[in-house]
């Protein structure tokens, strides 16, 4: 029941919001709806925590053998928490932003939430695909209607990229469907398929390219900085905080266990690509002059690490990946909130036009500092735990690869501190001389994130306990 509610509330909320005209009503409605969803998610995970509540099964497209089946395992719980937590955070942090046609904006956002939650819960191939697209299509509209100057071209690129992925994946899903005895889309039956190695090798790439585009993994990443730069910041937060996790999630649930032979076979290729991507994106991040693009490249580097760690097929590494999905989500949302505040208040995102903001906005500086430190995985912040486990996994796989990937730790410090220094330190410049402290709602939201960052950094064990069942299901024989 909880599982259904998590999808149903945003869908209904979104549909109603589409008809709201008043900006104030629409944003309060969206906030209310997302907070209710979050409350439901919390109650589902901490109070009604047994299988009946967290899974759901109904007939859907019986003629095709597809069921509307949802189930929430440990990884699902973490990602549902992330999704349901991110939306109220984003709505609260951008509460003061004005949008044209606010009803439609918030409506589409909520529909996207439903799609994302569905992706994380679905255990039926067709349903998964359905939600995957449901998440993508509102994002497309949100970027193309409310984005920046170059929004049409950029959104087009984003759409084509993700759509190519989707089509490949659909082909793969259909193939699997016809391979299963009795023609079914059920995930469990796919786990027991035991396909021959050569067909696994082909199918692996059909799925992997779709997921790699979403994550994104080098060299499928070029849509991301452009999209993040052009999309309205609220949407960017969701895209980078939650939507890229779809790719990683899908690799863990729909790729590795379904094609174990191909995973082992191509692990080297994927890990190499990911590690190249980490270093490559980190180097690019050093040279960026735009906050949003810097965060985008930094995100690519972090995602690269997660992707590499999955393919080491090491339990510790995989645990790191799953908790890092959550951690990276809240960290990157925090960074976007600051980027948005700066852009809204000062009208620029260029480092060369910023400086000395710490004198004018000390609270923002402190809060940003913590988020930045989390971005470089300092101990006692949440990302340290994830990255520690992931690097450990990578190290067990291959010492040299871990060493090379480790360089990204150093590079991360370079670009993050650069960003910190160029925005907040130094003397004030023309753009910042009349800057003011950021608004209270942003401060509160960031403060909540900061507390979460530190709390999860000091005591990560509950999250690790949560992911154990998933890890054992995905890598059973290790």
């Amino acid at each position: 029941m909880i599982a259904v509610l998590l999808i149903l509330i945003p869908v209904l909320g979104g549909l109603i919001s589409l008809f709201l005209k008043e900006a104030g009503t629409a944003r309060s409605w969206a906030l209310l709806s997302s907070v209710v969803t979050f409350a439901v998610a919390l109650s589902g995970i901490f109070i009604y925590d047994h299988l009946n509540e967290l899974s759901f099964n109904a007939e859907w497209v019986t003629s095709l053998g597809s069921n509307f089946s949802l189930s929430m395992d440990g990884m699902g719980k973490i990602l549902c928490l992330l999704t349901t937590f991110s939306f109220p955070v984003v709505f609260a942090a951008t509460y003061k932003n004005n949008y044209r046609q606010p009803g439609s904006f918030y409506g589409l956002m909520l529909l996207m939430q439903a799609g994302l939650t569905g992706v994380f819960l679905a255990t039926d191939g067709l349903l998964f695909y359905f939600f995957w697209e449901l998440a993508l299509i509102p994002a497309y509209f949100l970027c193309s209607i409310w984005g920046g100057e170059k929004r049409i071209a950029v959104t087009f690129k984003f759409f084509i990229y993700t759509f190519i992925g989707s089509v490949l994946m659909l082909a793969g899903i259909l193939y699997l469907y016809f391979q299963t005895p009795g023609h079914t889309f059920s995930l469990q039956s796919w786990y027991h398929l035991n396909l021959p190695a050569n067909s696994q090798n082909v199918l692996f790439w059909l799925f992997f390219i779709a997921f790699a585009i979403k994550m994104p993994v080098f060299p499928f990443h070029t849509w991301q900085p452009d999209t993040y730069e052009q999309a309205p910041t609220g949407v960017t937060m969701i895209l980078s905080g939650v939507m890229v996790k779809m790719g990683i999630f899908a690799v863990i649930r729909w790729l590795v266990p379904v094609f174990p032979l191909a995973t082992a076979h191509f692990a080297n290729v994927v890990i190499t690509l990911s590690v190249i991507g980490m270093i490559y994106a980190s180097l690019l991040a050093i040279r960026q002059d735009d906050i949003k693009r810097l965060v985008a490249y930094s995100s690519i580097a972090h995602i690269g690490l997660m992707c590499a760690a999955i393919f080491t097929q090491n339990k510790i590494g995989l645990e790191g990946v799953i908790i890092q999905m959550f951690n990276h989500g809240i960290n990157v949302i925090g960074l976007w909130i600051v980027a948005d505040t700066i852009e809204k208040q000062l009208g620029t995102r260029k480092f060369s036009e910023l400086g000395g903001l710490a004198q004018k906005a000390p609270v923002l500086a402190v809060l940003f500092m913590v988020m930045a430190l989390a971005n470089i995985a300092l101990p006692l912040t949440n990302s340290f735990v994830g990255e520690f486990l992931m690097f450990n996994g990578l190290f067990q796989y291959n010492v040299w690869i871990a060493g090379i990937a480790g360089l990204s730790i150093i590079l991360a410090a370079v670009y993050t501190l650069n960003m910190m220094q160029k925005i907040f330190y130094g003397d004030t410049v023309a753009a910042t001389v009349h800057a003011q402290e950021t608004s209270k709602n942003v401060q509160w939201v960031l403060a909540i994130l900061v507390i979460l960052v530190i709390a999860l950094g000091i005591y990560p064990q509950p999250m690790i306990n949560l992911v154990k069942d998933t890890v054992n299901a995905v890598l059973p024989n290790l």
Partner: protein
Amino acid sequence: MSETFVKILLGFIVLWPFAGFVLNGLGWHGNSKKAIARYACYMVLSSFVASVVIFFAIKSHGAYTVTYFNFLDTGSLKISFSFQADQLSSLFLLIITGVGFLIHVYSAAYMHEEEPKHYARYFAYLNLFIFFMLLLVLGANYVIMFFGWEGVGLCSYLLIGYWFKNNEYNYAARKAFIMNRIGDLGFLLGIFWLISKLATVDYATVFAQAQSLSNFDVTMITLLFFVGAMGKSAQIPLYTWLPDAMAGPTPVSALIHAATMVTAGIYMIARSNVLYSMSEVTMNIVAIVGLVTALFAATIALKQNDIKKVLAYSTVSQLGYMFLGLGVGAYTGAVFHVMTHAFFKALLFLAAGSVIHAMHHEQDIRKMGGLKKYLPITHITFLLGCLAIAGIPPFSGFFSKDEILAAAYAKNPLYWGLGVAGAAMTAFYMFRLYATTFLGSFRGTHDQEHHLKESPSAMTIPLIILALLSVLGGFLGIPEVFAHDSHLLKTFLSPVIATGAGEHLEHGTEYMLMGISVAIAALAVIFAISKYKKTPELGEPAGFGKILSNKWYIDELYDTVIVKPLNVLAGFLKNIIEKSGIDGLVNGVGRLVNYSSRQLRLLQSGQTGSYILFMVLAMIVIIFLWIDDHFIYKFISGLF
């Protein structure tokens, strides 16, 4: 003392400074500078008092290990958040909280010109530093140590860049953090190596199982750890951040960049002495890196004119001695030198701070001189510090340095020779500094001379206490030759640091070595004073001196060899590969589709006739295909 009590007390030792950080950081004390400083100082004082209690508990009872909670438990890997209070860590506890407290008191006066909110920020950072440093030395496993390890790096970054309006300082801060990060990566990889072999990071288990490691594994683990130590303790090649770190306030230099943080590397190796002793290769590398650093930094210090820079290079050099000590197996000697160095180097920095304070932020010694009569207390304490570092008996530096040099001689007489040469340079540049600053006649502006006066008592009292410690600290480790079983430190540390066999020299040899090194140092002192008392170096150096005063151009070398190529590479990736390569490819596909559709569009001419023609042709094709699947094949083969 019961385990629970120790557990609570250790928790408080760590949490008090943290509470100071939180409350001052949140602006709890508003605008009252007095309250801010008092609060911060009391927090550290409380920790110090508790540390004394712990010290005596350990002395009578032995080591304690207490666990608070499970930090991580993934089934195969378990890392608990636990503290280990043993002889080694309690010694460091005392140094950190004791010297830390004195420096807090000193800072309260030194920083009094700051605005209240920055004053609060300063003390918040300082308290946070103490917190992380305590975490570093108290942790019962390498991961907790790593917490503190990176945490002190962060605080060092924050405090170097404390005056964040100045971008020079910000660059120095960033450099320090990044160089430390390079070391941290090594440390981290070492931890992973340990995990992959032993599946644990707890000191107790690791040391117990160390014998099961292969020689290669031990060597790699210890070398990777040593990379971490190189970064944190400013050894070649990762030392260049430390002199730049002098951009921070002077008490910070005293606390972080002289007394405590930079000795973390020595702590780590002394802590892992079981592992290090197993690998001959690593030991040699540690000794050589330490020795080279000691000499190299000493040469640079000979020609520096910034009072803090001289002290900074001297710190690098002294750290080199400590690594030399570790490398030749004199772990106790190294720890002993950490302790005495903490006393006299903190003293020297604080006295330098007192000079800078009196001179209104002038740091160039060429513009000082003759300060002896204006700053009597500072002068005396500084002189004592100089004597201690120069290794003149019976000051503390003599004992600790002698212990290291004696061990070095036992290992390889060449090490000893070079070490003595370095010690001579140390004595020389320290007394060059002393003579140029305090002796001779005043060379500053008239205005400065008018305002010269001794610093307030909040600054001089810590100086006096540290001076006493610098004078007397050496008696904790009187060498075997003077009196039997009088090396209190060695006896105290013996449960954690196994004393190697066969290190003892003949008494006669030891007396001789001692005599030679003291004589050389004394000569250097006399030479320096006589040379610089009347005629200090005021001009720009030429020839070899120029190379030295430009620090062997190492910064420039790193800039050309690493920083610039990296920037060029990043620019190349950004502008060529990303824009024209990958994105070009993607856009090229798009453009191809666009182009071909524009060509195909021409078919839609609007000419009804052509449409019909296409239709008919298509129908003919379809019909033929439908009639027979192999029609085309047959048709073509029929042609031939």
